[in-house]
């Protein structure tokens, strides 16, 4: 997290030329999904803890999704300056 902010700041302030890191960063980000496959597979070992709360997990995730969409969409639309 600190690394993410530091990298963005170094590029933004032109201390670090973006061409130095762009190719490597784009490769990692393009195949990001592969990198978290092992983390997701670990769900196998937690299945007994998760299965009882599947309904709560689904409803909570959907409520959070709709909440963020509407809050961000409406706050921006109300406050943004016209083009």
């Amino acid at each position, binding site marked *: *997290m600190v*690394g*993410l*902010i*530091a*990298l*963005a*700041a170094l*590029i*933004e302030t032109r201390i670090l030329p*973006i061409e130095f*890191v762009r190719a*490597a*960063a*784009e490769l*990692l*980000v393009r*195949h*990001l*999904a*592969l*990198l*978290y*496959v*092992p*983390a*997701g*597979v*670990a*769900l*196998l*070992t*937690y299945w007994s*803890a*998760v299965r009882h*709360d599947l*309904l*709560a*997990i689904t*409803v*909570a*995730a959907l*409520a*959070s*999704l*709709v*909440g*963020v*969409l*509407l*809050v*961000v*969409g*409406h*706050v*921006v*639309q109300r*406050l*943004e*300056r016209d083009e």
Partner: protein
Amino acid sequence: MTSLLWIVVTVLAYAAARMAYDRTRLAVLNPAIVSMAAVIVILLATHTPYAQYERGGRVIGFWLGPAVVALGVPLALQLERVRRNLSAISLALLAGAVTGILVAVLVAHLMGASPIIVRSLAPRSITTPIAIAVTARLGGIPALSAVVSIVSGAVGGFVGVWLLRVSGVRSPLATGLALGAAAHGLGTARAAEEGEVERGSAGLAMGVMGILTALLAPLVVAIALHNAR
């Protein structure tokens, strides 16, 4: 030797899932979910304990750290956009980050989910690699956060634009920011189909939400669970 085998299996599962998705473009064939399911089926079928798979898996998982840092590159490319609407964007994303954590945590808690599950839902709205890191720190189940983050991103990419229009949001900037904030990577992919402003603002929202949620999640979870008791 066996750890090499499981690295190869994981990469092949991902390559096949990615190819299937690129051919069909079906949202249900999300490459990450399909490759996880394929690896789980192979482990169960071969009676392989997770601990043995993990010796290979951690070689791949190691790259999540550098990948999170790499997300700083697209973020830096989008920072230009903030200047004009700085206060609107900051306020909206701050409100969005708190909403995303609070709603997920409170709903799960009120529905009786166990504390470890509730903590795993806090980083629901953010990109999967950061969600995994946040949950590991909160003491939840990173694997659950990964799956919840991926699936809700796919759902948000699928219904997000429709939901925004129905609720009266028409502005391209608001649409892009909302999609990136609520549905991170797949929301951003969907926003890109709407236009250039939507694509850029979604990418920005996804990066900023990841940072804000990582910073705010411990505090919001503690306050929410303390008061909900």
